[in-house]
Each structure stands twice: as C-alpha cells, then as structure tokens.
C-alpha cells in the first residue's frame, strides 16, 4: 500500500480500536481525498465503533478481532478494501486511539502495528513531534527546547512539562500512553444511505464508472453491516452536470448485503449502459433497507449456498439482458391456452399462482405457438409440409365472450409427415380455417 503523503494533497484518516479489557488499540489510515462519511460507512463493515478524527478515521477493532480471525487477517481485509477502492492510506494499530492517530500521521515505510501498551509506548518514543500536529506556538516552543521526538518528552519530568506547555498537552500525552482513559465519540451511521462522489475527470464509458462506484458500494456494504440490514434495490444516479442525471436502478431478487454481489450486478448493468453525456459525479442511494434475515438451516447441505448463487445469477442476467429477459412461468386459470400460461417476473411472490389447476386437463403441448400459425386446408384436411394425421380430438374450447377476445375452437392432436406432434385447432366460425397452436416437443 502506498504510504506517506499522497500526491494529490491527501488528507489523513485514522481509525481507533478499543479492547474490552479497557485497553485500546487503534489504527489509522492516511488516505487520498475522499468524503469521510462514506469512508466511515465503509468502516462499519469492521466495527460499529468508528470515530472521525480530523482527516482521519479511527476504528475500535478489539471487539472485532475474533470475528475476522485475528489482527493480521483483519488488517489484510482492510488493505484489500482500500486497494479495491484505490485509496492510499497509512495504517497504524495501537493500544490507544490517540497513539494510533499519531503513529499513522508519523507514517513510515510500513504500518506501525502495536497491539499492546508496552509496544505502543516504545513505538511512540520514535514519533516526531510534527506528527502531533500541535498549534504553531506550542510546536515552536517544543522546537525551542530542542525536543524532536515524543521520546525526548518522556525523559522530562511530567509536572514541569505541564507547567510550561499547558495541562491539555500533558493530558493528551497521558491519553496516548494509556495512563488515563480516552473516550471517543462514535460516528452515527445515518438512517438512510445516500453517498456521492465527484469523478476526477468526466467519464464517457459507463463500464469505467464501476471503478468509482466501487467506493460507494463498499460504503454501502459497511453501512449495511453496521445496521445489520440488507437491500432489495439500490439506485445509482449518474450526474452529467447542468442538472441532467441518469438513474440506474438495480433490483435484487433477494435482499443482499455483500459488496461483491452488489458489485457483480452493477457491473453487468453498467456494461450495457450507454451514457447520454459524460458523467461528472455519482450518487448511490438506498430507498429502503430491511433487517437482515438470520442465516438459518442449510448450514450443512449447501442448499443456502446454491440458493444464493442462483439469486446472484438471476440478478446478473436481469441486469444485463433486461428484467423482461428473465422470467418464471405460472399457470393462470383460463381455458384459452394462450392465457392459461403466463410469464411471471422472477421469483413469484404469490406461490399459489404457480400451482397447476386442480382438475386434470386434457393433454397440452409444452410449446405454444403464439400467435397461432394458419394452416392450409386441402380436401378438408389441414396441411403442413404434407397432410396432417389427426390422432385425437376434438376438444372444444369456448371462452372469453366477456372480455372481447372470444375464442371458440376445436382442438386436435395431429402428427405431420415428419412425425412431429402438433396441437392444432379449427375455428368453427367463419371464415374458419385450421391453425397450429402448439408443439408437444
């Protein structure tokens, strides 16, 4: 991960972590410019206790270590996320939030990882006083004393330091060293998620937007994790400037909360999107978040996994091909065959709609030809690549006088000269004629 100052006049972001036994560890990130609330939302993925320090983000990770499989695993995930969002950041882990902030500001070629107090104190000794970002008069005085590092301060008697430099500075020092408590105000995750970002340059190709949108999706995933929520739909607004926006709604067949799933669906949608004008900014909005359902059953048989994989597939197919291109099938109580079968949007909510009719029906073809194909008639027999042989029938279907599409037909099962099984009907009303209405397949 790139460390130190970012080239674009980057800001610092820090992250602290408290431990349940009262000791704290903190990690800090120095990042490129990025709306900090969005980054705080992202951090919700790791811990609900997030603190926004000036230009820094601090996470209390002590309570999360076990969940994420230890400090190295947690740090790896943080780094992966930062890399995926293309954020340069300086990480530090310390036993107190303030120490973590100072360590991160101090920078260094690699992240300072000090999970307990002794190592934190040892690491702090080497931190230059510039990393404390003191007010200029205080900084000048310290420089006048010939003090360069925190270690130089620690060799001096604390009481006289307080007298010369003021109580607040000594209290800060004690907080960083873990001698007194340092309570932090937590970031309050907003009730509704709406985050945006400006693109560094106008983007003309929609697929490229995915890269920027990834930051917003990561923020959304963190927000969802912190609120233990899931979403069925999100809306990405692409701002073209001059008040012109494109709305890209995404719908999911089941509530989702993982960044990877949202990203995969978003990718398919953006791949097929054509922008009307270059995009200048993005905004991600969630209309309604619902509580996440507890993962139940299916722990051992993999059915849950299969179900999730299927939902993911359907969402991506719908995102790319259009929602009309992915359908389920449902029966409908109507005698007219063309109305007895309906395509239903994926995942029919009403399970009764897909139940077949209770009474046994005469044979129906698997494929329906819509609209029915007119057949020639020769010597009173229907023809289709030669005469058709009628095997069974007729079955009279007469219905629909009330809704304008009145049908009165006599259906036959027929076989053609190529041994294909057809479902044909004859219209007894003038002008009559034979029609192919289905294939038995």
């Amino acid at each position, binding site marked *: 991960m790139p460390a130190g100052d970012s080239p674009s006049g980057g800001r610092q972001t820090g992250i602290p972590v408290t431990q349940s036994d009262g000791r704290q560890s903190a990690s800090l990130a120095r990042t490129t410019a990025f709306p900090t609330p969005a980054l705080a939302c992202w951090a919700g993925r790791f811990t609900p206790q997030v603190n926004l320090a000036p230009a820094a983000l601090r996470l209390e990770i002590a309570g999360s270590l076990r969940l994420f499989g230890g400090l190295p695993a947690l740090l790896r995930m943080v780094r992966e996320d930062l890399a995926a969002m293309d954020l340069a950041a300086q990480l530090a882990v310390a036993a107190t939030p303030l120490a973590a902030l100072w360590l991160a500001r101090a920078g260094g070629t690699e992240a300072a990882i000090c999970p307990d107090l002794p190592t934190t104190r040892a690491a702090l000794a080497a931190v230059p006083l510039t990393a404390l970002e003191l007010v200029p008069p205080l900084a000048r005085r310290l420089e006048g004393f010939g003090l360069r590092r925190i270690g130089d301060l620690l060799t001096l008697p604390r009481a006289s330091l307080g007298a010369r430099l003021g109580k607040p500075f000594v209290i800060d020092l004690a907080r960083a060293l873990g001698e007194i408590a340092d309570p932090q105000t937590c970031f309050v995750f907003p009730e509704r998620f709406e985050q945006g970002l400006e693109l560094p340059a106008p983007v003309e190709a929609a697929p490229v937007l995915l890269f920027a949108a990834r930051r917003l999706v990561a923020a959304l995933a963190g927000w969802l994790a912190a609120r233990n929520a899931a979403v069925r739909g999100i809306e990405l607004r692409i701002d073209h400037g001059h008040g012109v926006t494109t709305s890209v709604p995404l719908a999911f067949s089941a509530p989702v909360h993982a960044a990877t799933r949202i990203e995969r669906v978003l990718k398919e949608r953006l791949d097929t999107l054509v922008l009307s004008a270059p995009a200048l900014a993005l905004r991600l909005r969630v209309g309604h978040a619902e509580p996440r359902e507890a993962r139940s059953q299916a722990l051992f048989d993999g059915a849950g996994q299969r179900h999730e994989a299927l939902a993911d597939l359907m969402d991506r197919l719908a995102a790319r091909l259009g929602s009309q291109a992915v359908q389920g099938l449902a029966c409908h109580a109507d005698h007219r065959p063309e109305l007895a079968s309906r395509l239903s949007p994926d995942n029919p909510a009403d*399970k009764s709609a897909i139940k*077949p009719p209770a009474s046994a029906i*005469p044979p129906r073809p698997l494929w329906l030809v819509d609209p029915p194909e007119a057949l020639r008639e020769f010597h009173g027999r229907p023809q289709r690549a030669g005469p058709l042989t009628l095997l069974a029938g007729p079955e009279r279907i007469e219905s629909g006088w009330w809704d304008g599409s009145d049908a009165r037909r006599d259906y036959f099962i027929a076989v053609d000269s190529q041994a294909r099984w057809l479902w044909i009907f004859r219209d007894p009303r003038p002008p009559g004629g034979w029609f192919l209405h289905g294939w038995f397949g």
Partner: protein
Amino acid sequence: MNPSLAQVLQRPDIRRGDAFAVAPAPTLATGFARLDAELPGGGWPRGALTELLPEHSGIGEIGLLLPALAALTAAGQTVVLIAPPHGAHAPACAAAGIRLDCLRLVFPRRSRDALWAAVESLRCGGVTATLLWLDALFRGYLPANSLRRLHVAVGEGGGGAFCFRPPQLAAEASPAPLRLQLQAAGEQLRVKLLKRRGPPARQSILLDIARPAGFSQGVSHAVAGAALPDASDLRQRSRVAA
C-alpha cells in the same frame, strides 16, 4: 487371470476398451432404464455438455428429458431454459411434473448475450440443469470454440447441460462427451448414441416417451359446446388417408 493383473485393472485410471470410463461426476437419472444402461455412469452426465440432435423439432426431444427434469424440480433443484424456441406452456409443464417455481426462462436477444447467459448459467452452482437452444441466434451454427466454452463452463458448475442442435451437425466434431441423435419412430423415440465416453454404441435404442394420450371424444372442457358434427367422420377420413 493373473491376480496382479486383476489388481492393476481395478485402478480407476485404467480403462479397458470394452467398458465405460469411470464417470467423472455423478449423473442425473434419465428415467429410462434402457437409456441409463447405455450411458456412462448410468444417467445424464453432470459437469459435461450433452448434445441432443433431434431430426426435427417437435418429435419428442423434450419428452426425453422430462422425467429427469420432473425429478430434479421435485427435489427443489433449478432448471434454466435459455432461448427456448417457442413459448413454454405452463399447464403442460405442470402436468408433466415440473415444479414451475424451479423453472427459469431466459430470453437473450443477441447471440453474444445468449452465449454469455449460457456460460453464466452453466457455471452457476445453483442451477442443476440448463437447456440451451443457441444455434438459432447465431448466423449459421454455434461456433465450435463457443461450444468448448460451454463445456468448460459446465465443468465448473457441475450441473447438467443439454444443448439442442440442428441434425445437420451430427457428422461435425464436438467437444461434448455425449451426443445423441433423436429420430421419430411412431409413438416411440429412436435414440442413437453418436458419441459417449466408452465403447461405441452398436445399435440405437427405442424409448417410450410420454405422448399426449387421446382424450375421449366430445369432451367439452370449457363452456358447453357440442363437438363438431363432422369431427369423428373427419378423423376417420384422415386415418384412412394416413
């Protein structure tokens, strides 16, 4: 036989020419005992492409798969149809034993989308069987390298993949390890195994697939109405003519 030779022959990586190869993945029972006996592993392969080449569409090629699909959906497994040639008729599917909530239909408009959807569906672990009608969307036929992509994709997903293809391709080379040619034979369906993992099949099999049973004459399904007065006469005439 020399006992050590017999021992060697037990090894799974040794195959004798007159026996089936060890099936790489579990199979899906076809529902036809005679067909199961001829297929390596005793059923439709999972994780490998199966090509079905019906002589004409409508001769009963879906009927061949129906027992397997009914069993799968009854167990709650998902079946995906990609670019079906006609509109599927829900009551008929339900009557054939297919659970409709386990059925998904995908209608891609362009060949590129169709291939993408097919690959994604085959790769998805949540789809147990995928039925594909891809050739119609391509100018000419589905290119051979696309077929190979499909085969690789289904190897990842591990479901069944049934690709319906035009009969003219029977002589073409194909990466699919199982290829069946389907011909009508009266009420039955003649299945010729063009290719399988194992010794070449010597003869084709006749299968009794489900055919629409004749309904009794004069059944009025909907609002009352008499059958055509000349219906029986008409049928008789057509039988005689046939």
